[in-house]
């Protein structure tokens, strides 16, 4: 529990206003912010100072004080206080515009990372095919993000990078960044996206080149299908937000996986039957094909799941239904960053395919 004083923020290397700068945008954004801040402080002190002074100096001393007669207008003065702010906001616009163009135009040789958003998980796909739910970046390298959403609006926000851009379904949006400081930083969804909007967070980790390469290798390792399926369930598969493993209901979510293969279910369309592997596979790939009665048809279509991923998920769901859940990974948020999130081998090509597909 933190105290009333936000000391914990300051302890992380930030100032009163901003968290620590970790990208090349930091100095520029913070400089413009402070320029506007001191300009605003000047005008605010001027307005409130004069107001306070007048209220004290010209306070009414008796009920029948005659109404004073003073100037009713002053053209020169009024034109002055129109023109000066106009010039000043012109400067603010220009500085903001310059900084913005730097943020929007990516260097030509930037490494491209695909950012896939769906309710309520982030997935990052590297050029080598590695897939991760934590954004690992190498220090002092340029990255361009090619962002897409599987369902509703999201927005990728890394405060330490001063970077935010919306992820829009039906089109690609882009952003770029050059991380300049090693460390682990928050990555938030900033555009409201429903039930677990506030849980659609992950980390971005800036590493030295060696550590970064080692991390990419680690991402390609898969493990047993059931363990791997569990990692997908907790992480970038996004199942956990709506489907429990212990039979408990999730408000606004879907049916639990407990006893999924045992109990009869009624779906629309589809009728009444017991779940099997093919039903689970279909429900992952085409969520709206057979919706269990009593639940809204709100499950999003999968984003960035390979065949290997789907196979592992089906095996995990059967295991969870019949035997019970395997050891979880994401219950301890601190462990999430270290063990490489969901990990995973997208079996399309590259390293991930070579190493992950060998099973």
């Amino acid at each position: 529990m933190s105290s009333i004083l936000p000391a914990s923020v300051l302890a992380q290397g930030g100032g009163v206003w901003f968290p620590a700068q970790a990208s090349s945008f930091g100095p520029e954004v913070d400089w413009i912010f402070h320029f506007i801040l001191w300009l605003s402080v000047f005008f605010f002190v001027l307005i409130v100072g004069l107001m306070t002074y007048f209220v004290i100096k010209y306070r009414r001393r008796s009920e029948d004080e005659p109404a004073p007669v003073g100037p009713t207008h002053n053209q020169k003065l009024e034109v002055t206080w129109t023109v000066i702010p106009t010039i000043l906001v012109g400067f603010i616009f220009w500085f903001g515009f310059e900084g913005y163009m730097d943020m929007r135009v990516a260097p030509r040789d930037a490494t491209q990372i695909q950012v896939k958003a769906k309710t309520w998980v982030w997935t990052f796909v590297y050029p080598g095919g590695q897939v991760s739910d934590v954004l690992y970046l190498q220090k002092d390298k340029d990255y361009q993000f090619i962002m897409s959403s599987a369902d509703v609006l999201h927005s990728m926000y890394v405060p330490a990078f001063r970077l935010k851009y919306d992820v829009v379904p039906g089109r690609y949006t882009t952003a770029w960044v050059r991380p300049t400081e090693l460390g682990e930083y928050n990555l938030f969804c900033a555009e409201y996206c429903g039930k677990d909007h506030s849980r659609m967070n992950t980390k971005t980790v800036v590493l030295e080149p060696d550590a970064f390469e080692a991390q990419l290798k680690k991402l390609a390792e898969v493990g047993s299908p059931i363990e791997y399926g569990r990692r997908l369930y907790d992480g970038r598969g996004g199942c956990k937000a709506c489907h429990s493993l212990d039979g408990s209901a999730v408000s606004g979510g879907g049916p639990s996986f407990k006893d999924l293969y045992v109990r009869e279910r009624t779906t629309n369309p589809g009728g009444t039957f017991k779940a099997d592997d093919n039903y689970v596979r279909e429900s992952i790939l085409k969520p709206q094909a057979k919706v269990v009665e009593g639940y809204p048809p709100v499950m999003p279509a999968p984003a960035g799941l390979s065949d290997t991923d789907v196979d592992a998920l089906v095996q995990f769901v059967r295991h969870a239904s019949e035997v019970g859940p395997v050891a979880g990974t994401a219950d301890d948020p601190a462990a999430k960053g270290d063990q490489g999130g969901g990990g995973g081998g997208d079996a399309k090509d590259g390293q991930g395919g070579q190493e992950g597909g060998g099973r």
Partner: protein
Amino acid sequence: MTSITVPGSTAIERPEHGRGEDYLNCDKGWRSWLLTLDHKRIGVMYMIAITFNFFLGGIMALLVRAELWTHAPGPITTDGVIYNNLFTLHGAIMVFLVIIPSIPAVLGNFVLPIMLGAKDVAFPRVNLMSFHLYMVGTIMLVMAILTGGLDTGWTFYTPYSSVLSSSSVVMAVMGAFILGFSSIFTGLNFIVTIHKMRPKGMGYFRMPLFLWSIYATALIQILATPVLGITLLLLTVERALGFGIFDPKLGGDPVLFQHFFWFYSHPAVYIMILPGMGVISELISTFSRRHIFGYRFIAYSSIMIAVFGFLVWGHHMFTSGQSELVTAIFSALTFSVSIPSAIKVFNWVATLYKGSISLASPMLYALSFLFLFGIGGLTGLFLGALATDMHLHDTYFVVAHFHYVMMGSALVAFIGGIHYWWPKMFGRMFNDRIARLCAIGVFVGFNLTFFPQFLAGTQGMPRRYHEYKPEFEGYMRWSTIGAFVLGISLFVAFYNLFSTLRKEKDAPDNPWGGATLEWTVSSPPPHHNFDSEPTIYDPYALDAVVWNPETRSFEHKKDAGLLEESGEGAEHA
């Protein structure tokens, strides 16, 4: 609607009212209220409905703030959907049911015709219909809460609202659609009334500035609100019938919705703040006993805000994926709208110069407005500048900024205005000592609530978060403490006003020394506003109004402060 015979209308033909009869007691029974054509009674009914909705929205706000006491879910709810409902309903109620109608529908309805020396607005039956539509819209929004809630955010962004949300979106959206018509009819009525019913001698530049601001507001209401109506209809068609307009899976474009929505909702920000600025012009002038400084600049700046307000909607979408060129143009235009607001602030401060300043409760609210609008307006600069907005967009910085403008400015002006005109509306003085304490409580509570949110925002806390990182807990706790100080102060302030209804009428005709026409009639005003041909005074000739210790009221000096029919600004159009 016009074909219905309204029982209350018979009162209009009644030739004379007896002594001591006013608009409150000239007719009795609920029909004489619900079917009245009297602008004053309609204004009072709006006030009761809006006050009720204000507390409903306020309770939602307190639940949100209490929930955010801890970074983990709880203590109010561990269910994300319930939290999302709370902040959505807080926003939707406060925007559509409270702030947009507040000053025009309550204070505008009550004082606008009297300020013009008129008997009523131009279309009394349309005015009544506006109120009935407001009630229908309110009931539909409340029905939406009861039948499935609403969890889309007050902005109804697609495709979440049209596809994913399982709440009562259609019911709520149709409610907002109907409320839009209420707003349009009110605006239309005021425009016609101001054009056609000004008395002889009162040219446009001799009107009280409150009327200029209501006029500018009404322009926005009738030009922008239809776009909201169409947008909400399109959303309904997509959600209910599956037409692809905004959902990319059906071939639509979600960013298009944002353009449509903000094309209304940005001008709507000025629907909310312009009337507040009008109230402040009246309060500062009256309580300084000074002619308003720079009348023409203030009047023109209202119109400039209304016009520029239509050109800046894209600044809500700097990170939305709209093109860089469009984004840069919207940023430049956004700064243009800051200038007329700055002009007004400087002119208000200059009005205080060499005044005779009273610190009665309405003036405390007016001075709070200057302070809070100063912060609200200046923090807009950070959001209009592109580089800083990339960081601040959709964080608590934005939440703090618009609360300083919407609540700290628009609603504080409304509450100040209610205190100012309360003796006129009900003929009863409230306890000004309690009112002043409440005004200070509102000021302190408000700043305690919202200033820490600026810091949470620059530190990177996104808005609409049910659970959040522990490092933001400190800011959130200050904010929650402030919200309860604010809530209690507001409750006591309103109780202090409404409790006067139990006592005898004791208010003089002009307790504060205002020079506008409503202060020349009795408190409360007679049914027809003026029993004889009104004398038209200059609204800012404060030196013509003098204190009469016998009646404990201000009165116009004989033949002083009259509006001459000739001279600059007196021309009729």
